[in-house]
């Protein structure tokens, strides 16, 4: 089996497609998935993400899933998948690659850290809507986890790494243990929309209590992993209090598909108390309040003085 560890791709090197001849300039390494490495590349002043695979067949299988989704018009505004080709390295080895739309963004924890936790309900809703679109097309995402979600400006959600994308009814191609309902003794590994929703619910737990979740996976003996254990962590997370009922339904696979789940989430999120309170009042607000209080005092004292003057 070929490995990608010694791939001679540095910033500035140019990669040429064997079949279509497109040229891409490597800018930086974006990340590494189960099936390959993802680079930021440029071509004609545009940025793309380029995934290069160690195994042509694994990568092709992923490309096929992306193509099937593209045919159903699922790629939001413009096409996610741009180009598919092979390239020959200086050492004579051939690798397959594909390019996709590049979305500049952050992972969810970083986004929430920088922009505030009140964004959480919206990010969650956007993820659920995206899953809903996939389910409607007859697919599930499969390997939903923190690492496979990018958040761009204003909570725009992009799912990346479709290596786990599976047609509904087939066996889930790729998954990560802690997000897998089979691992929690709570269902099969047959692809259905409830599979993604279970992973999504676990993702919510992972976002707010990563340590407790990791602790549970190492402490519990396999037979005792259960929805009850997951729910007991949920109950300790104040940010999820409002969504407890929803999460319980998701864990038990009681939503018919992603769209129904998204709609139920939206209803909850739009109720006022749903808004996750940030831990502290922002400083600018404090300053404003102080200023307004001070001016109020000044106005009041002047008024009092004047009143006193008038009374005299």
């Amino acid at each position, binding site marked *: 089996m070929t490995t990608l560890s010694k791939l001679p791709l540095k910033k500035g090197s140019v990669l040429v497609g064997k079949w279509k001849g497109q040229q891409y300039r490597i800018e930086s390494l974006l990340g590494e998935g189960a099936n390959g490495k993802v680079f930021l590349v440029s071509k004609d002043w545009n940025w793309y993400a380029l995934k290069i695979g160690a195994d042509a*067949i694994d990568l*092709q*299988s992923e490309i096929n899933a992306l193509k099937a989704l593209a045919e159903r018009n699922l790629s939001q505004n413009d096409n996610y998948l741009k180009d*598919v080709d092979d390239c020959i390295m200086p050492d004579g080895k051939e690798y397959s690659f594909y390019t996709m739309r590049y979305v500049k963004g952050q992972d969810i924890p970083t986004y929430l850290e920088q922009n505030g936790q009140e964004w959480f309900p919206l990010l969650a809703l956007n993820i659920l809507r995206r899953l809903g679109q996939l389910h409607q097309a007859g697919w599930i995402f499969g390997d939903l986890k923190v690492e496979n979600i990018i958040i761009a400006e204003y909570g725009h959600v992009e799912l990346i790494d479709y290596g786990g994308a599976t047609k509904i009814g087939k066996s889930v191609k790729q998954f990560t*243990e802690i997000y897998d309902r089979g691992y929690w003794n709570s269902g099969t*590994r047959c692809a259905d929309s409830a599979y993604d929703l279970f992973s999504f619910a676990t993702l919510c737990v992972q976002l707010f209590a990563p340590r407790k979740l990791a602790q549970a996976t190492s402490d519990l003996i396999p037979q005792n992993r259960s929805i009850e254990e997951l729910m007991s962590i949920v109950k300790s997370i104040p940010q999820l209090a409002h969504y407890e009922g929803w999460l319980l339904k998701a864990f038990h696979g009681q939503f018919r598909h992603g769209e129904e789940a998204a709609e139920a989430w939206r209803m909850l999120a739009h109720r006022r108390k749903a808004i996750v309170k940030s831990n502290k009042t922002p400083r600018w607000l404090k300053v404003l309040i102080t200023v307004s209080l001070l001016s109020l005092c000044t106005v009041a004292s002047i008024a009092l003085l004047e009143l006193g003057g008038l009374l005299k």
Partner: protein
Amino acid sequence: MKQILLITDGCSNVGMSPVVAAAHAKSEGISVNVIGVVDQGELGEYGSAEIHEIARAGGGLSRLVQTKELAQTVQMMTRKTVVQTIQIAVQKELQHVLGNHSIEALSPEKRSEVVRVMDELTETSELQVALLIDASASMRPKLASVEEAIYDLMLSLQAREGKSEIAVFHFPGAKHQEDCVNDLNWTTHLKGMQSIFPKLHMSGTTPTGPAIMSVVEFFTKQKAKSAHDLTEMDGIIGDNAI
């Protein structure tokens, strides 16, 4: 499709070479995968070399992992080997039809179609996995994790469309002349099963080679039936792939 998955933590020390035994398995159309469980690195250089050699001779994969990674490794390795077996069959078929061609040499459009068919076969082909567990004394603390991995594998296999069966063996047996013991005959589910290894007598020897041979024999007993299945699968590939 037939696989043996050997889970061990040490070197063989009795009887025929496990590498030769694995080569026998391969010639019977059975892939041999090997997982070495190394928690404190007790396997040593010789042991890990043996593990990789067995898998090479058996046309399978090998990996050294920690006990906690066992379940995921078993599941992934089994799946990868199914893919690989189909890949080899398709490759052969392509060579037959197109001359000196590999899947990688096809244009992206053609490759896309071939891989689609391969994915379909990966999902629908019949599969038998015989798990062969080293139950020598040093493995005792790891057997709970091995059992967990077996349950987990069954769960993944049950999600496939094709019929999937597992059987479980451990070695060495209690009596001296016994190379390996069949704990569980071919089954498609583990419902109601209390424990796969109820009470084991752990002895000091590790007859890996002879144990592999016994499992190969177990497979070949039902050869007449599966020879028929194999020609059927060749037919599917021949019709759809090209």
